[in-house]
Structure formats: structure tokens, C-alpha cells
């Protein structure tokens, strides 16, 4: 008997490509928005790393939507627009995606506190990596206060970002189910 199942599968509609592309676009827009936030005197020189919150959340909950170059492209966009070190954030973001590949299963079984603790480690790692590379390449140590402020604000905003992203995700799922 000829297998006919494949003719009824929604192969084209189930493709992850459009979503993977959208994730990259949204991440880049968030990186641009980060730069926009710097226009606020409060965040001058140290904006929250919103793109990292987004990347972390997507890598944790939607691993199939995280393309191999997602972290790289979001990071490089951020580097090209606002940083002196092209590739520093991109490298750190690739590492984050890689780390999440390893840690995902454990984190998905844990509660929110575990996720937050993991995010603290990830954010500290990303900023510390940039700090070390920057200091080594410029042979000078930048002011520490903005660095600490940036980490602190990002960590404080993480739960808010997490809840917003989860809510939006649930809303999307509802729309998909009903349609």
C-alpha cells in the first residue's frame, strides 16, 4: 500500500524557518531599542541588556526556534551599532546559546528561582567576558560603576521580561489553537 500520510501533513506550515527568522529580527529590534533606552539619562552608558533576556528565554523554552546563528546575529547587530568591540557580544551570545543547549533539560525541570540564578550567571559571564576582552585590547580598565549598573538593571528586569514573554507566548498559542 502506498503511504499517503505525507500528503496530509502540514509540512510547509510547520516549518520553523519563518519563526527562526522572526526571532532574529525581534532580537535585533530589541538590541536597537536598548540603544534607544540610552537616550534616557537614567540609562546613559548602561542600558539593560534586553536582547540577552530575550535570547535566554527563547533558548530555554523554544530551542527549535533558535537558529545556530541567532545569537551571533543579534550580538553582532548590537556590537556594530553601539560597541567599540565588534564581535565581543556576538561571541558571548553564541556561548549563551551553546550553554543553554547543555543546561536546558535541567532548567526546564526546575522552578523560576533556578532559572533566575542561571540568568545571573549568564549575565555576569557575558558582561565579564566583554569587560576582560575590552580591558585586554585597550590596555585600560573602564569605569566599573556603569558595568555593575548594567548587570544589576538587567537582573532586576529579568522577571518582568520573563513574565511578559511568557504571557505573549501563551496568547500566541491560544490564537494558533483557535485558528
Amino acid at each position, binding site marked *: 500500500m502506498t503511504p499517503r500520510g505525507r500528503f496530509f501533513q502540514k509540512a510547509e506550515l510547520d516549518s520553523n524557518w519563518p519563526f527562526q527568522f522572526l526571532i532574529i529580527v525581534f532580537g535585533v529590534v530589541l538590541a536597537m531599542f536598548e540603544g*534607544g533606552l540610552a537616550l*534616557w539619562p537614567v540609562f546613559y552608558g548602561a542600558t539593560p541588556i534586553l536582547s540577552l533576556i530575550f535570547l535566554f528565554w527563547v533558548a530555554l523554552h523554544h530551542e527549535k526556534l533558535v537558529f*545556530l546563528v541567532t545569537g551571533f546575529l543579534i550580538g553582532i547587530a548590537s556590537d556594530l551599532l553601539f560597541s567599540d568591540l565588534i564581535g565581543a557580544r556576538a561571541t558571548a551570545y553564541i556561548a549563551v546559546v551553546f550553554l543553554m543547549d547543555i543546561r536546558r533539560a535541567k532548567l526546564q525541570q526546575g522552578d523560576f528561582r533556578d532559572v533566575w540564578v542561571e540568568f545571573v550567571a549568564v549575565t555576569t559571564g557575558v558582561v565579564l567576558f566583554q569587560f576582560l576582552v575590552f580591558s585586554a585590547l585597550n590596555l585600560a580598565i573602564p*569605569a566599573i560603576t556603569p558595568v555593575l549598573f548594567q548587570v544589576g538593571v538587567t537582573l532586576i528586569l529579568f522577571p518582568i521580561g520573563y513574565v511578559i514573554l511568557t504571557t505573549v507566548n501563551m496568547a500566541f498559542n491560544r490564537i494558533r489553537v483557535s485558528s
Partner: protein
Amino acid sequence: MRASDKAKIRQRRIAHTLLVVFSFSLMFLGKLDLNALRSARMSMNDFTAPFVDLVSAPVRGVETMVQGIRTVASLRAENVRLQAENALLKRWRRRAEILESENRQLRSVAGAVTPDRRQPVTARAVTAPGGAFAHTVLVANGREQGIERGNPVVTADGLVGLVVDVGATYARVLMISDINAQIPVILSSSSWPGVTVGNNGTFLSLRFLPEEAAPKVGELVLTSGHGGVLPAGVPVGRVDLVRDDFVRVRPAVDLRHLSYVSILVGGTEGIDLDNLALEDYYTPLPETEGTRLFEGVNAAGERQ
């Protein structure tokens, strides 16, 4: 685990590693300051700056609203302050007129060189420094408006920075607070030369002051014009703290509230801005000179 799955994981890991190596090498390539990379970056900025501007619009809107509310709340106090400031400015204007006349007479005696003619071009700041690792800002004017690399960027309060990259319609300004910004300056009252160095923070540090120099808190720090890239006499900041050998300077411009800036175009003819060698730029001061006004002094230390 199936063999195909294992192969997929291996492929993914190899791709990851290659990507890490690629982006890591980008950092070093970026530091080499290659022309190709610089122009690629500016082309990218030219393309994305309008989007950044669009995305920043809500933030700018909220900021304007907050400022509006604040202004209304402090209108009465502001009026009293402005009246007092106006009276003070009138006194200063009278004094400036007297000093200007005195200055003109002294110049004719000392034979100092008249500052180069520079044309101000007004530009809007599209971004602000968002990270702790670079203090640069994109401004909405570029090559098409005559902007060149090395053009000084100022506001009415003083120096903001220097144009470091120019695209067709956008330019990137290295602010004086950036760790790579080193501005040759003099202390206004004593005329001792030094160099302000940023640290990607709020303040600058004043270095390479002669041992005899005794900077005072509140003393104005001006550009010396040494090297010819920056005009002389533009306020950079005021001495904020003096502790042993450490001198801290608060920038004259509130860099957190930049909206419009003036780019001073021209006046750098004959200076190779693409190859500013450190030894050419920071030439030792001419010891035989009786004056410490450096404008018009070329790399060899001679007056042009």
C-alpha cells in the same frame, strides 16, 4: 541515540566552534581599524540608523513628556533662577567686552595665530552611549553634508567629542568620555598643558600635567589646539577633584542630555586624519616658545 542524531550533534558543535572562532577573530580585526571594516560598519550604520531612530521614538516621546511635566512643576523656581542668571550674564557680557578688547590688543603684540575658520553644521544625536564599553554617538549628518573624520563636535557648553567614522548620511562621534578619547588641553587660569582621558564613565581624568602645575577645583579646562585637529579654547570641563597626582574633570557638556550638536567642519586642511600617529599628534611642547597657546603649532612644533 541514533547514529544520525550523533552526527547532527557533532555537526552543530563544529558549527558552534567555527562561529565562536569567527566572531572572536572579528574583535581583533575590528581593533586593527581596517578601512574596509570601518566603511562596512558605517554603511551598516547608514542603513540601520533610521530604524534605530524609529525604535527610539517611544523612548524619546516618554523623555519629552517627563521633561515637560518637570518643567511645568518647576516653572516658578526656574523663572527666579533665570532672572538671577540673566543679571549675572549681563555683568559677564560687559566684562567679556572689556576682555575682548584687551585680548585683541594683546594678540597684536604677541602675534598669535587667528583660529582657523570652521563652519558649524547642526546635527541631531540619533543614539546615546548604551553600553559601558563604548561612549560613541551617531549623529544624523554625514559625508553629504561635508562632515569629515576628525571634525570636532561641540555644543554651546563645550566640547562633545570628535567625528571618528563618516557614512553618507550619518557619522559616529567619539565622545570625550570614551576610554580612547585623549584631548590635549590647558588649564584656563595657569595655562599648564595636559591631556584629558575618558574612562567610559561620567568624569575624565587630567593626565600628563607638569609637576609644577597646581590645578584648582572649579578651574576651567580648555582645548589647547595642539596638533591642529581641535580648535583652541573650547571648554572641555572643570576640575572637579584634585587628590595627590589624580585630577578629575567634570565635562562641560552634560553628555546625558545630548539632542543637537554642532559639528565644526573645515580647518583641518593639511592634517592626515586617517593616519594620526601618536608621536605627531602629541608633539613635545616647544620649549623656546614664551607662550602656551598652541593653536597653529604644527607637528614639528613650529607656528604655521
